[in-house]
């Protein structure tokens, strides 16, 4: 059964991953959703002595984010740890639920672009040098397969223990300390350490390509244990090669907001201007 020894093994594994890739540099923040992965990331980094700050993005997803925010606030109070909340409504003037009604786009696409933007901006404003996210082994293996299936070398090259391949003065390096920990182990660790969460899924998640890949990969893993780790190991051996294939992509500065982007106007500003046109 999962026990204290298991917890120590998980903590040692995370520590090894951090040291192996020199993941934590300077002041560290954790992108917190209130789900098990981000709470466990925060809990372990705190336990390892990194004094992290939690940053929570409230996208405004009714029946989901309002519940997980409560979970996050409750735990941060217990841990006597700092949690800073940023919201789509305050930053962009609309919740994700409102945007989805206006835009003919997959919710995960809108959310992915705006969340990434706001998390990076928030981290920079808070003086954070390393932003840790709760991606676990399952997430990473899924991401590798998704990009492989779509033949998207650009996105594939951005994966790894430190995500993103282009450097920009405004881009906060993003790291994944749980990248070698299975999702099931993250849940067991959370339960053993009193991290109580609601077992709910984002209402938009079933629409995503990720959920399809997740289902198939879980079927395969149950028949062939070790598959997820093998996918990540396979990728890691070729990561530098993928990066070298896309090294021409230059990251510039958005003409409108000054955030990092590969285009003249960043995807966030493109979305916001689309929303403003719709509103008129």
């Amino acid at each position: 059964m999962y026990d204290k020894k298991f917890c120590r093994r998980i903590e040692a594994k995370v520590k090894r991953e951090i040291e192996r890739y020199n993941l934590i540099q300077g002041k560290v923040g954790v992108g917190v959703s209130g789900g098990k992965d981000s709470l466990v990331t925060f809990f372990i980094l705190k336990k390892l002595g990194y004094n992290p700050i939690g940053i929570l993005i409230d996208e405004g997803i009714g029946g989901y984010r309002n519940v997980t925010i409560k979970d996050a606030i409750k735990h941060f109070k217990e841990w006597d740890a700092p949690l800073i909340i940023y919201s789509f409504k305050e930053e962009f003037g609309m919740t994700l639920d409102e945007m989805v009604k206006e835009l003919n786009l997959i919710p995960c696409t809108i959310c992915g672009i705006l969340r990434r933007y706001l998390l990076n901006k928030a981290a920079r404003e808070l003086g954070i040098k390393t932003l840790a996210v709760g991606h676990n082994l399952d997430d990473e293996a899924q991401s590798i397969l998704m990009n492989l299936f779509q033949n998207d070398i650009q996105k594939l090259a951005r994966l790894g223990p430190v995500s993103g391949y282009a450097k920009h003065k405004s881009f906060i390096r993003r790291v994944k300390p749980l990248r070698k920990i299975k999702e099931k182990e993250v849940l067991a660790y959370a339960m053993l350490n009193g991290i109580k969460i609601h077992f709910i899924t984002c209402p938009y998640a079933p629409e995503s390509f990720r959920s399809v890949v997740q289902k198939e990969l879980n079927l395969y893993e149950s028949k062939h244990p070790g598959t997820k780790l093998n996918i990540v190991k396979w990728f890691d051996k070729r990561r530098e090669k993928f990066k070298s294939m896309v090294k021409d992509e230059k990251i510039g500065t958005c003409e409108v907001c000054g955030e990092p982007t590969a285009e003249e106007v960043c995807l966030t500003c493109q979305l916001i201007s689309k929303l403003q046109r719709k509103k008129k």
Partner: protein
Amino acid sequence: MVIQVKYKNKTYKVRVKRAKVKSIIEKVGLNPEEYLAVKGDLILTDDDYIKDGDEIKLYDVVSGG
């Protein structure tokens, strides 16, 4: 032997010989990768054995979005 498996509002009765958690989860038609089994205060791994009369509760591993 008979095992009771609780998941959300449902209770399944599974009849098996000596069995591991993994095969019990499979017997109720679920993928063991996606569920964590708990017996009382104990969190079980897929390789733990279940005894006659045991009651286990399943939790969703996949959450978030």
